[in-house]
């Protein structure tokens, strides 16, 4: 059961392995604070939609499942949008139109269709948490790379007198501006995807090697 949670973190990471939700990953990964805010929004919507889709899977007829899922997802997105506008206006302003666009984030509809409507509530909630945290992790990694190299800063949440911006000496005066532009986002995602694939392949080879060694040891014992 715990595997439903852990699989979304790295092994089936929605952005770096399954390559879903690339539009928001490209669009809001200009600053770390945007990535964290978007990640929190997606985790909430994923949790809510997976929970309700799983609860209502026997009530919703197969022929209207997609429109029903969209209504459920859009409702949770509207909740996030209204709550952010009312209680976190600076984050809402910063994320702008991308909060509303969570409705069409293919990770959310994908998990509702591929997982939540076939599994129990407990498994669906764990799946949503794992996938949501995996999405947030990937988005933050992309944003951190882009912001550090492209602007020489790390933008977090402002607290009291502090404006929430960490300025990195050297990098902030001569950054690689292209990384803050859409082309830079594609480059960073491409390199991180290659890195994730390489790690995945190495883990696979190591796993195969371990299995071989285990087999040889078992034979020698026999």
């Amino acid at each position, binding site marked *: 059961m715990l595997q439903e949670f852990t699989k979304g973190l790295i092994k089936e990471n929605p952005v770096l392995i399954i390559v879903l939700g690339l539009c928001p990953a490209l669009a*809001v990964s*200009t600053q770390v604070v945007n990535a964290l805010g978007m990640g929190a929004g997606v985790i909430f919507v994923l949790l809510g939609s997976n929970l309700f889709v799983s609860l209502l899977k026997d009530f919703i007829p197969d022929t209207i499942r997609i429109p029903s899922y969209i*209504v459920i997802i*859009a*409702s949770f997105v509207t909740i996030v949008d209204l709550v952010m506008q*009312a209680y976190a*206006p600076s984050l809402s302003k910063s994320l702008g*139109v991308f909060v509303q666009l969570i409705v069409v984030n293919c990770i959310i509809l994908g998990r509702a269709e591929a997982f939540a409507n076939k599994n129990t509530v407990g498994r669906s909630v764990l799946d949503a948490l794992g996938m949501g945290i995996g999405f947030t992790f990937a988005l933050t990694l992309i944003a951190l790379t882009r912001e550090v190299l492209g602007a020489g800063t790390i933008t977090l949440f402002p607290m009291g007198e502090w404006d929430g911006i960490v300025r990195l000496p050297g990098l902030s005066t001569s950054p690689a501006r292209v990384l803050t*532009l859409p082309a830079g986002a594609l480059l960073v995602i491409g390199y991180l995807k290659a890195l994730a694939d390489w790690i995945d392949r190495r883990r696979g080879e190591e796993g195969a090697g371990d299995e071989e060694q285990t087999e040889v040891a078992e034979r020698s014992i026999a």
Partner: protein
Amino acid sequence: MTASSRVVANTGGRLLLICAVAALSLGALNEVTEPQIEARRLAEQQQVIAQFATADAIGDPVAVEDNLTVNAYYPVGQGASTDGYILDLTGIGYGGEMQLFAYYATSGEIRAARLLDNLETPGLGKKAEGPSYMEMFVGTGGDTPVPVTKEMLSGSGDAGTAPPPVGWRAMSRGSIDSWVFGEQTQSAGGADAVSGATITFSGVSAALAEGTAFVRDLSSKGGN
């Protein structure tokens, strides 16, 4: 009722029920958050206006009905003399409507401006929210025209080739495209502030240019 009609009624009824529950829940949430959102918006507007002039110098707002860009104006001045106007403007950016507040001298010169509610792209058009973005317009609108092209910003081009699009909302879609994507993107000169966000810049500059024209017209009529 036939079997197929029953299936349609059953399916439609279930979808209707899901939609109704969703709508009711969101309506209830809207009742809770709406006053908070409105209060925040008004407080933000008041904060911006207070940055432009002292409270005792700002007159009551006057709604503008016959202008699609200028929503309202606040006369600024001591006693009966009007020193300038604060305008509540609407511009069109990449993500749709943008709300701006700008402070003008009676000559139409921009003294200060701020971008408020907007749906511009984070990291690109959103940069226009920063106070430094609007500095490129401050001091224009009087003797010098409001910059509406990148050449005008860098001072490398002929300002006369792209007149301020006063009355731009009346322009045809084709002429707007030509103005935005043609002349603007072929610009050799450039300002870092507008790089990658030409449509936001165009929306802001067009609204400010319209504001200049409005203030000049208002001053010539001796209005307050």
